[in-house]
């Protein structure tokens, strides 16, 4: 690999929690490409900044403050205790003090104070209140695209201030005045136009799935199917479109198909809902979130399925678990004996427990696994019926599939997990420096278990995490194929046929 045009953070001992030396302005130039008019207008956003945008931004902020009480509280309640300052992976990786969560929130808070608090209106200098200016907007654009909305800081905040919500609000304001982000908005446009983030049209999807069926047959001798648009199927599987396209995602998709096959449960994919992801959340736009979610409802209705199961996608599961009912419910037409919606890991874990499928660990011989908790699964959702199910269920499925599973340092897993470095709409090539540096806390914890416990692979349960790690592992001298899908492990271990 060619040398990177930036420094790669040195990896230390995750138990020592070293705080990096401050490098003010280190990431001031980092920003994603701005959305062009062609990416803005299909979403109903202005094509560019037009005269009077400052007032429109403040009006929009006022609307959000009255709509979301949480945002108002987050603006007023921070006591600058400092608990969050060394908890953000982007701060730890870059040393830029504006990547401390409190400083990031203050970019928003300073404008809030100027226009919405009595002292800020009269004596802005006393309370750090700032006018909304081009300079402030540029700073917002840069640093609200250095937050992956992973919510790790909120775990440590004594008041529970959720910087993710502040960053979503900031992005929504920027969209509303014509300063959108190309990566997210182009993708959302593709979901509306074509049906998924990739822009994979139905004929290409069908061709790809047919090829996968051939591969599985060649490899196992068993005719495992990947059905599409099958009316009357029991289960609609909604999965990130990266599962059709990229590695190791596709190996996870093959795993889901084998599980359905072995369990004898009829299932189908949908060309209409060929995407689990919902980038409407990343840009903080409720209408987009709703519109994207409605495709799933329509597909479920049209196909007459009884259950909806989500594939391995972190933020999709947060939207599904936490918001789907209000976004696209009620789901009274589905079978109420099952969770609505259900996660594929819940489905598989349940089958393992009831001995509905059989796993042979020798299918993963030689592998020592660790697991990366996806931030949106860990802190934005749950699995199963017990608290912490989102941690125990994936681990139970992995442990049943592989010879050995070990955890990384306790301060880097479960509810304290670090973001992969590419979440929240930042998985785009122009942000590669941010992504590489932001991944350093995770890489540090990974290196620790590689060195001390002989870990060979890291399982991930989110399409973004998988793509991010595949790209950044080589920067830290790891093999890109070290990251695997959880259901890839199931796929290697599952015993097909003769399950009666």
């Amino acid at each position: 690999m060619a040398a990177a045009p930036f420094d790669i953070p040195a990896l230390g001992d995750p138990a020592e929690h070293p705080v990096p030396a401050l490098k003010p302005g280190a990431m001031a130039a980092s920003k994603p490409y701005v959305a062009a008019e062609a990416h803005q207008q299909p979403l109903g956003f202005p094509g560019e900044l037009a005269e009077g945008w400052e007032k429109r931004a403040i009006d929009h902020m006022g609307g959000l403050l009255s709509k979301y009480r949480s945002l108002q509280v987050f603006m007023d309640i921070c006591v600058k205790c400092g608990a969050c300052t060394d908890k953000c992976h982007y701060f730890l990786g870059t040393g830029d003090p504006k990547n401390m969560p409190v400083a990031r929130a203050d970019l928003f808070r300073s404008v809030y104070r100027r226009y919405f608090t009595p002292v800020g209106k009269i004596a802005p200098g006393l309370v750090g209140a700032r006018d909304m200016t081009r300079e402030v907007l540029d700073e917002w654009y840069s640093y609200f695209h250095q937050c992956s909305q992973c919510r790790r800081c909120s775990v440590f905040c004594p008041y529970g201030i959720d910087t993710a919500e502040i960053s979503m609000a900031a992005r929504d304001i920027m969209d509303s005045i014509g300063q959108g982000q190309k990566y997210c908005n182009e993708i959302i446009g593709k979901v509306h136009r074509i049906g998924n983030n990739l822009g994979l049209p139905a004929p290409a999807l069908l061709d790809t799935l047919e090829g996968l069926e051939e591969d599985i047959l060649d490899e196992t001798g068993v005719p495992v199917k990947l059905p599409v648009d099958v009316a009357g199927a029991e289960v609609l599987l909604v999965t990130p479109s990266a599962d059709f396209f990229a590695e190791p995602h596709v190996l996870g998709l093959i795993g889901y198909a084998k599980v359905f096959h072995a369990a004898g449960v009829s299932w189908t994919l949908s060309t209409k809902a060929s995407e689990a992801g919902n980038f409407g959340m990343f840009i903080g736009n409720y209408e987009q979130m709703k519109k994207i979610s409605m495709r799933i409802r329509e597909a479920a209705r049209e196909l007459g399925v009884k259950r909806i199961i989500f594939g391995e996608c972190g933020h999709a599961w947060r939207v599904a678990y936490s918001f789907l009912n209000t976004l696209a419910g009620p789901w009274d037409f589905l079978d109420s004996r099952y969770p609505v919606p259900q996660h594929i890991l819940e489905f598989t874990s349940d089958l393992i427990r009831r001995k509905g499928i059989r796993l042979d660990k020798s299918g993963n011989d030689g592998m020592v696994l660790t697991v990366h908790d996806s931030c949106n699964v860990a802190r934005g959702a749950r699995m199963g019926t017990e608290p912490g199910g989102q941690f125990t269920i994936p681990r139970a499925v992995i442990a049943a599939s592989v010879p050995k599973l070990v955890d990384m340092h306790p301060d880097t897993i479960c509810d304290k997990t670090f973001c992969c470095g590419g979440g929240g709409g930042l998985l785009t090539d122009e942000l590669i420096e941010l992504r590489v540096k932001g991944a350093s806390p995770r890489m540090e914890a990974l290196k620790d278990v590689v060195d001390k416990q002989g870990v060979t692979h890291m399982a991930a349960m989110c399409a973004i995490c998988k793509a991010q790690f595949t790209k950044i592992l080589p920067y830290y001298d790891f093999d890109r194929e070290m990251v695997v899908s959880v259901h890839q492990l199931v796929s290697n271990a599952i015993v097909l046929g003769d399950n009666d």
Partner: protein
Amino acid sequence: MAYTSNGAAIEADEEGYLTDINQWNEDLAGQIAKDEGITMTPEHWEVVNFLREYYSEYQIAPAVRVLTKAIAKKMGPDKGNNKYLYELFPYGPGKQACKIAGLPKPTGCV
């Protein structure tokens, strides 16, 4: 940004992906490859030509696995794998080869 090929300016996006696939030609592909630090060999052309064929049928780049299978068929099973494609296109066969082939960049969680 824009490229110049045979005296004509050819428009590309911020990252160098062509905005109009029909403006692509082999000379331009060589130029884009050079910018990416790649010297085109017959093996690179096999990949690029397959991408273009697939795109003209499906309006999208092929999935990584579809590509590796096609390359295995054309160039032998020892070359039909991800590692070989990364040797040809170090920044990732999906994105780098698409750029050289004049295809739009694959988007999403890839």
